[in-house]
């Protein structure tokens, strides 16, 4: 304690000495003192900046498309969902105590399996300058799939997914997207093995795609990858070596459809005509029947009305009605010919030319 006091006293004494004898300080000491003073100022500023940087580094921002996990001494702060920090400003302790791990979650990620596709590059595909197909496929470089009928097809699948469980996806797998790709490869392989080439390429393309997605989804769940499948697209084509023959099959199928469509058109026309004819027959029968019955009933009524008058003088009635009818009929008749009796009392011979003989025909009519 005394030592300290003594030291303080000495220090004060020195200050007094400085004030008393400023003229004794040489120029070098003064320059050194000034340089030290400037250096201390710089150090103070740097330290101030470091403290500010230290404080600022305790805050961090999480974007809307991501989640963050704070690892404190390597261990997540919180458990399960509680360990995941959402969008906004958050606090942490400085490194190496706390470490921030950012995990993209909202954005859709994609993997494409081209294990079943022939050798090509994206540049060649885009430019349409792919190498011509050889007589066979080299498994070292060309990918292809075996179908259930032991045929060969090419298929390429793209799986879009998003991360549903960021902890599983990030901390359980060293390369999660590659693990997803492996699953997609397997799904494509498995599905092709259960579909015939025709089904995978032509008849059931949609079902083929659905089956790939179904298998991939099941495997992803089984392997706990922590992702949810958004959609899956599959592009399948026959081997390029068989393009011509597959085109011929397509043409044959189109012709078949055309032939059947023509037959269906004929069938529709025929049956519709028959239905129309049948309706005509029935309608005619109904109208004939109606007319017949109506006329007969009318005739019966007429008969009942006439009968008393007829009974009075049948001959006169007949004469009167017949002449009346003939008179009425003659007004409508276009041509009327009267042939008087021959003077010799013999009947007249009347020849009628009903139709002219068609020109150019012989006696037999040919």
């Amino acid at each position, binding site marked *: 304690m005394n030592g300290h006091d003594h030291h*303080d006293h000495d220090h004060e004494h020195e200050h007094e000495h400085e004030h008393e004898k400023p003229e004794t300080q040489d120029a070098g000491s003064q320059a050194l003192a000034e340089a030290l003073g400037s250096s201390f100022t710089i150090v103070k500023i740097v330290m101030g900046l470091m403290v500010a940087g230290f404080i600022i580094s305790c805050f961090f921002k999480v974007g809307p498309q991501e989640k963050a996990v704070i690892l404190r*001494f*390597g*261990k997540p702060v919180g458990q399960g969902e509680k360990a995941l920090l959402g969008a906004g400003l958050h606090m942490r302790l400085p490194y190496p105590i706390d*470490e921030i*791990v950012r995990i993209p979650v909202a954005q859709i990620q994609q993997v494409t399996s081209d294990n079943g596709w022939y050798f090509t590059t994206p540049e060649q595909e885009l430019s349409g300058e792919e190498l011509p197909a050889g007589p*066979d*496929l*080299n*498994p070292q470089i060309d990918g*292809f799939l*075996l179908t*259930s009928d032991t*045929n*060969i097809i090419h298929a390429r699948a793209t799986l879009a997914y998003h991360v549903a469980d960021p902890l599983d996806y990030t901390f*359980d*797998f060293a390369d999660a997207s*590659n693990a997803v790709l*492996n*699953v997609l490869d397997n799904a494509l392989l498995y599905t092709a*093995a259960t*579909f015939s080439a*025709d089904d995978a390429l032509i008849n059931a393309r949609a079902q083929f795609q659905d089956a790939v997605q179904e298998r991939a989804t099941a*495997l992803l769940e089984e*392997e706990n990858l922590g992702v949810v499948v958004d959609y899956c697209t599959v592009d399948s084509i026959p081997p390029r070596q*068989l393009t011509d*023959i597959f085109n*011929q099959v397509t043409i*044959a199928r189109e*012709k*078949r459809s*055309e*032939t*059947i469509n023509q037959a269906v058109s*004929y*069938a529709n026309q025929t*049956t519709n*005509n*028959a239905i129309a004819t*049948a309706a005509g*027959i*029935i309608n005619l029968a109904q109208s004939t*029947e*109606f007319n017949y*019955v109506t006329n007969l*009933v009318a*005739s019966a009524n007429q*008969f009942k009305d006439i009968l008393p008058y007829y009974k009075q003088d049948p001959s006169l009635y*007949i004469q009167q*009605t017949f002449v009346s*009818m003939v008179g009425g*009929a*003659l007004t*409508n*008749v276009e041509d*009327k*010919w*009267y*042939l*008087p009796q021959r003077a010799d009392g013999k009947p007249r011979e009347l020849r009628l030319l009903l139709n002219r003989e068609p020109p150019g025909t012989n006696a037999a009519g040919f």
Partner: protein
Amino acid sequence: MKKKNIVSVIIGAVIIIIFAMLLFAFQVRYAQVAVVTTFDKPVRNIDQPGLYFKWPWPIQRVYKFDGRIQNIQDKFNETITRDNNDLILTIYAGWKISNPSTFYPKFAGSVPRATEILQGMLRNAKNAVVSSNTLSAFVNPDPRQLRFDEMEQKIQDSVQAQLSTNDYGIQLVFLGFKKIELPQSVTQSVFDRMKGERQVIISSEQNEGAKQATIIKSTADRIATETIANANATAAQIMGKGYAQAATVLPIFEKDPALANYLLRLDALQQALGQKTTLIFDERTPPFDLFTSIPTNAPHAAPAQ
């Protein structure tokens, strides 16, 4: 002066603590596993994240490994099935370090070395499983006949058994087929077969189209004939009903059949003499009989037009 000493002490203490922590403490991060060795002998397994302490080097050392599942893919090789079909198979697997203290000495802590050993095991197990199955286990129209999952499980079990027996400290988490292909020489013959099958399909499509068209047309013709026949039958029924209804009226005419007969004939004649009719009479037909029954100076008149 006191304040400055306190600050100096604190700074000194902090520096000492930092140095001490660097020497005596270490962190195991989430998804990491570690093994602590004492004079290179593994003495402690660490599979949980956190802050741990150890004796300083060279007494103790810490070896940290990635505890996450690693992807592995075996090499491309040809395998023969039980029914003598050549297949080229590739499999993928996911593995992780389950016991760092056994993993470290076996592989000198080298993940690439472990991967190499695993690839060999996978290849052997794969060949054994493939050679005990037929081609129909790999490709089959009936999914129930397909042995994909079963074969994958067998390979995984076989490899896992070897890993456990050798105490490699590795766990095989999952496994699956990645590629199943045919040798290059076989693809050519498959193409030839596929061409033949397409030719059959083309021929079949053509014949099938003609057959179906004929069936459709003949069916339509039959339906049309039946429809008209049914219509004729219906028409006959309708007319039959009409005649039956007419029969109820006929007794009225029986009161004087001669008159009825006359009226019906008169009606029929009236209907027959419509427009555009040419009538030729002689003088015996009333009322033209008047031309002969009434006396006149001209015995025979010229025919009227």
